[in-house]
């Protein structure tokens, strides 16, 4: 019955739920979904992590390659992120070249990682001007149920924490490269960036409602471009706010959102640390 109602009057259906201060899956407005995290599941990748935020599933795999640093930045390595939204994650995407939305999410994720300065590119350089690491981070979404950026960042950080860089011996005279695959060095990560997504909904009494960790259905109801507001935090320092469509925000809403994001960051940190100690657990 409610499925039929959902199809015929989608806006009213959604409004009814918001009016009684609850959401379709029974959460409060500022409640997050459970996070499940597992690392080192994919052996062909140098580091990997699988994250499930509710139904949203993201797999992150990291592959390392060697390259010559750029001439104008001889002591910096390379960090290349890529977000893939294959057609199987949602009926919205068709098979073919990466959709616009995938490129938007990719941009957001790489901006967050760059601005949070969690990876120092100088650490990735082995011999200045001769040899540096290229870290390819590929995040694949297997199930798109909202809050993509959150899940991507969690997966990325978890795989960074388990990444081990092999030691490389570079003979400057003969230009011989010897890679010791008994991987040793842990990648140094400064801080722990965490993103929180919100959907901004304008209730018909011109009341602004902030929905934390929206599902796909909620995102569509609030504009359709994905989460409207994404706030990223890195150890107490704000490292990015993006707003894409949705209702307008007053300053109080803004402050409340930032406060919620801060709380969420602490919770996610606990999950990641617990997972890395036990190598695979739930929230």
């Amino acid at each position, binding site marked *: 019955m409610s499925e039929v109602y959902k199809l015929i009057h989608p806006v009213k259906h959604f409004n009814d739920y918001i009016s009684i201060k609850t959401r379709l899956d029974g959460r409060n407005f500022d409640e997050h979904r459970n996070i499940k995290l597992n690392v080192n599941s994919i052996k062909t990748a140098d580091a990997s992590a699988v994250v499930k935020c509710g139904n949203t599933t993201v797999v992150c795999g990291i592959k390392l*390659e060697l390259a010559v640093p750029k001439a104008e930045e001889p002591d910096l390595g390379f960090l290349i992120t890529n977000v893939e939204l294959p057609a199987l994650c949602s009926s919205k995407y068709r098979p073919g070249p990466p959709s616009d939305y995938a490129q938007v999410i990719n941009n957001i994720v790489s901006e967050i990682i760059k601005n949070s300065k969690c990876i120092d590119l100088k650490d990735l350089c082995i011999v200045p001007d001769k040899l540096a690491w290229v870290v390819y981070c590929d995040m694949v979404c297997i199930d798109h149920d909202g809050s993509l950026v959150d899940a991507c960042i969690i997966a990325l950080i978890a795989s960074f924490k388990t990444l081990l860089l092999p030691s490389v011996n570079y003979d400057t005279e003969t230009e011989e490269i010897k890679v010791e695959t008994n991987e040793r060095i842990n990648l140094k990560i400064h801080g722990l960036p965490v993103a929180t997504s919100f959907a901004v909904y304008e209730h018909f009494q011109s009341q602004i409602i902030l929905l934390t960790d929206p599902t796909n259905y909620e995102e569509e109801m609030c504009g359709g471009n994905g989460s409207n507001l994404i706030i990223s935090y890195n150890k107490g320092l704000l490292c990015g706010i993006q707003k894409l469509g949705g209702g307008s925000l007053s300053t109080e809403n803004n402050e409340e959102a930032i406060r919620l994001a801060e709380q969420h960051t602490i919770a996610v940190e606990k999950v990641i640390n617990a997972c890395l100690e036990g190598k695979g657990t739930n929230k």
Partner: protein
Amino acid sequence: MVSQAKGSAYVELRKTKVVCSVFDPREIPHQNEFRQLGQLYCEVKFAPFSCPRKRRPYVPDVEEKALSVALRQALEPAVCRHFFPNYQIDVLIYILEHDGSCLAAAINAAGLALANAAVPMFDIITSCSVAVIGNKMFIDPTEIEEHIAKNSTEVNHGIITMSVLSQLKQISDFTQIGSMDVECVTKVMEVLLKECEIIVPNIQRVLVVDVVKNFELKKHLEAETKKREEILKKKMDEWRSLLNGQ
């Protein structure tokens, strides 16, 4: 497994990990003529981190296209295509980790996902592969074994993947890479038939468990709705009596 898809499945053959999702029938794009039978659109994609030796580029390379075509050939005899004429069903496969037997894993996953999506099928489809190096047979080869089999210089070398419709006792697809003589092929076929038979009970069990779970969930939800409807009815009766009393 994938909440956004009509039907989905996840198959792990030891280390090889494959996700499959199936979507509702949709109109065939760029289509002018009317076709009596429905189409299956299969696409296989490898994750960039799935191959042990190097990273794969984005452009669907030859191997992915070949796998997609092979998958389509294997699935077409199993699906009742006359039930959705002029429509197309998307079967999308994503390979998370490639450790050999990709086509076999993909066919198994696709069969499960199609069944999960309630697409009418003639039979359960199962698939298995064997690598042949010289006079040794390796059932369900890993990536290293496949690599050796492909590049071996012995008389008999290669990989055979076979998919079988078990109840109907029909072979839906037979793919062979490499060169081997006829006796070798017949021996391998017998082995593969037996292996595919062994997989069938597992698939049946998974499907039945899923159906039973959904059934029980549905009953539970219906019971709850009935309770709520009763409460609502009582309230309505109260109000009616109040209105009538006034």
